[in-house]
C-alpha cells in the first residue's frame, strides 16, 4: 500500500492533477443484492489532452437481506448481511469533450457480518452465501464512464466487485 501511495504521489506530481471527492450509491447484483452508500477520493492525472489516469480510493457500506422460504416445519430463517469495503483502483480513461470512460483494475479488503442468522439445521438450507469475516481480500475489474460539469463530475462505475457484480453511481467535486 505504501508503494501504491508513493506511486500515486509520484504520478500525480508529473502531470497536471486534480483531486476529486465524490459520494454516491452502490448496488450489487449477484446472489443477495446489496445496496448502500459509497465515498471516494481520487487523483486525476492528465498526461495529455485525451488521456486521464485516475487513482481512486473507494469505500462502500452495503446492506442486504435474504429470507429462506419456510420449510415443511414452518421454519424460516433470515439473514441481514452487512459489508464494508475499501478499494484501491487504477483507471486508464479516455477524455473527449466533457466525457471520460475507460477500464480499471483494483484490489479491495472487505469485512462482512451476518446478523440475526437463524440457526441452521440439517435439511434446512442456509439462505445466505455470505459469511462473517474480516480481511476478506478481493480483486476487481472496473469500467467507468463519467461526465464533467465544470467543477462537478458524475460517473458510473461498473465493477466485478469480487464476483458480486455491481455498480456505483457517484457525483462529486474537483479541486
Amino acid at each position, binding site marked *: 500500500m505504501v508503494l501504491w501511495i508513493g506511486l500515486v504521489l509520484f504520478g500525480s506530481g508529473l502531470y497536471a492533477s486534480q483531486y476529486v471527492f465524490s459520494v454516491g450509491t452502490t448496488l450489487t447484483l449477484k446472489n443477495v443484492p446489496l445496496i448502500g452508500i459509497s465515498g471516494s477520493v481520487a487523483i486525476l492525472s492528465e498526461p495529455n489532452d485525451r488521456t486521464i489516469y485516475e487513482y481512486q480510493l473507494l469505500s462502500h457500506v452495503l446492506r442486504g437481506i435474504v429470507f429462506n422460504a419456510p420449510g415443511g416445519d414452518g421454519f424460516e430463517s433470515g439473514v441481514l448481511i452487512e459489508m464494508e469495503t475499501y478499494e484501491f483502483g487504477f483507471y486508464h480513461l479516455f477524455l473527449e469533450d466533457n466525457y471520460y470512460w475507460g477500464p480499471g483494475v483494483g484490489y479491495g479488503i472487505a469485512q462482512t457480518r451476518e446478523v440475526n442468522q437463524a440457526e441452521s439445521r440439517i435439511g434446512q438450507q442456509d439462505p445466505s452465501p455470505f459469511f462473517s469475516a474480516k480481511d476478506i481480500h*478481493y480483486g476487481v475489474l472496473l469500467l467507468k464512464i463519467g461526465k464533467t460539469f465544470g467543477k462537478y463530475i458524475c460517473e458510473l462505475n461498473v465493477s466485478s466487485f469480487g464476483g458480486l457484480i455491481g455498480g456505483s453511481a457517484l457525483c462529486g467535486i474537483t479541486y
Partner: protein
Amino acid sequence: MRHHVLRIMLVIMAGLMVLSIGGCRDLLTKHNIDLDGAKHGKKLYSGAKNCTSCHGINLDGNGFIPSCYSCHDQLWNKDDHTVYVSGVPHLLGVSSVDACRKCHGQDLKGSKIRDGKQALPSCYECHDDLWTGYAFHSINEEGYMHAPGWESPMTSGCTDCHGPTLQGGTARSCYSCHGDEWNEGHD
C-alpha cells in the same frame, strides 16, 4: 524524457496491477489437495476467507473461477469455526457437543450429501464413536461437561477413556484443566 518516464510508470503500474490481483496467485497448479476428486488449494485449511481473492467475496465464483457452492453447500464456509484440530476447523468456544448438534444433527452424523452437494460432515468421520461418551457427561462444572462420579475419577471409570493417569487416552487429559490436583487429593 517525459514519454520515457511515462513508459516506465506504465510498466511499473502493470507490475503492480498483477501484484494487486496477486492475492489470486494460488492458480490451478497449486490446487493439489484432492478431496473427493476435487482439487483444492492449501489455503483451504486456513479458513474459507482465504479463498476469496480468487473465488469471490462470498465464494460464489468470480468470472471464470468456479463457485465453491457448485460442490459445497452453504454451511461449510462459516468462519466462526476457527479452532483447528488436526487441520479440521471446529467451532470456537464449544465445551459441549450440544452446540454442534444444531448443525451436525442430533446424532452428530451430519448430512454428507444434500441435494447432490457436499454438506455437513459427520463428526464420526474423525471421532469415531467417541461422541457416545458425551451422552452421559451430563454434569456441567464451570462450562465443562463431566460424567457422574467425576469427583472420584480413579474409581468411577474415567480412566477408561481419559487414561490410567488421567493425562489423556482416547479422550482428553483431565490435566488440561485440573493440572496435577489429581495426584494430590484424588488418588
